[in-house]
């Protein structure tokens, strides 16, 4: 089987070429080359863009913009992105992190896509040539979206306000049983004034724990006060079943791990 690889210097030209049937965008290769190695014959042609702008990280005034080709390793070692490092380090081993990109992670099917869960909790904006979309909308439509993602943008969370957890059975690294990202704002007395929580592996793509977010408002982060929020975490979930864990198991352990992440 032969794959044609075309390299473009501009996203505009690449977007035009990507409209052809059987064409996929090649980022770090950890998803698409994996698929072709496995014999995915639906891919006959690959497109990539070598514009260095796609690999840039910009942090200023509390705003972050990550080019779509920025790797997990680049995020994990960036001094101003320490709050995101746990989520970036959750992806793969060192070699995968040197290859896997922000843009690619947005398309990674569960149980992959741990970083996308973090972006969902951060209410990131997904940038393409023809405009921007909230990450939640982007994820919902990603199967039909054919435009190349060029960047993601979000407000830099305070380290103590952003929590991330990936649960895997193989230590230190393994595929996700689940992942949880939480962006929390607390009042001076410790009550939750704002909560945005994203779950990985609880559907075929990251989803928000809307009922939990609502139930957390006004609570202090003690085991007693967050109990109703944990009980609500199963609302709206449809966990995947794969060789790592069954849907039943994932649903059973979600409140346990969510409780550990939220309790101080």
């Amino acid at each position, binding site marked *: *089987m*032969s*794959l*044609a*690889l075309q*390299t473009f210097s501009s996203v505009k030209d690449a977007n035009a070429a990507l409209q052809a049937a059987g064409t996929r965008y*090649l980022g*770090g*290769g*950890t998803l698409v*080359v*994996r698929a*072709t*190695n*496995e014999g995915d014959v639906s891919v006959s042609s*690959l497109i*990539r863009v070598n514009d260095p702008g796609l690999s840039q990280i910009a942090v200023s005034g509390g705003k972050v913009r990550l080019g779509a080709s920025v790797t997990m*390793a680049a995020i994990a070692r960036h001094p101003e992105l320490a709050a995101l490092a746990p989520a970036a380090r959750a992806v*793969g*081993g*060192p*070699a*995968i992190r*040197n*290859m896997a990109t922000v843009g690619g992670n947005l398309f990674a099917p569960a149980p992959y896509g741990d970083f996308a869960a973090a972006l969902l909790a951060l209410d990131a904006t997904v940038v393409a040539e023809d405009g921007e979309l909230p990450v939640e909308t982007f994820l919902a439509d990603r199967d039909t979206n054919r435009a190349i993602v060029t960047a993601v943008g979000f407000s830099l969370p305070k380290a103590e306000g952003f929590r991330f957890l990936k649960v895997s059975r193989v230590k*230190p*690294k393994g595929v996700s049983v689940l992942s949880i990202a939480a962006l929390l704002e607390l009042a001076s007395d410790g009550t939750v004034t704002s909560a945005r929580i994203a779950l990985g592996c609880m559907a075929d793509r990251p989803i928000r724990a809307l009922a939990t977010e609502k139930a957390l408002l006004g609570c202090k982060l003690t085991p007693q006060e967050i109990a109703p929020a944990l009980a609500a975490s199963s609302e709206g979930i449809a966990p995947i079943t794969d060789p790592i864990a069954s849907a039943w198991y994932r649903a059973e352990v979600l409140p346990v791990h969510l409780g550990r992440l939220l309790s101080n």
Partner: protein
Amino acid sequence: MAKVPVQFTLNGSEKAEFVESGATLLHALRDKIGDTSPKGGCHQGTCGACSVIIDGELRLSCLTLAETCGGADIKTTAGLAEGGVLHPLQRAFLDAFATQCGFCTPGMIMAAKVLLDRTPNPSREDVVEALSGNICRCTGYEPIIQAVLIAARANSQNAA
């Protein structure tokens, strides 16, 4: 089938080869150039047996397309020994019985080399983290971790 030319530096020597469009770097190294030190294990990015160092960074050659490596500086385990003298990591892997079937060894050594190049005196946790993308089905990992720590000590003694 379309062939594309690729040129890169492999272990210090210039290589030029025609590969099929879409061929992986692993295929180019093993089947075109004849460097069989990177191994094809899972071809899925899971096992790490195909790990090579591209421009100083650990990468998986099974998920890297050869034609994206034009002008790159590629290092494999085959290039580590100098004039018949084994690299300290290779020596330590032998001395510590860190290799049994040997299939994972070149990938392990590449991952360890990147670690020691950046962190000459790693902690045990650093070693475990650095090898976390490489799977070994024989040793139970402990001798491998020990071998990397032994190589690090040997390096720092040589430097002192």
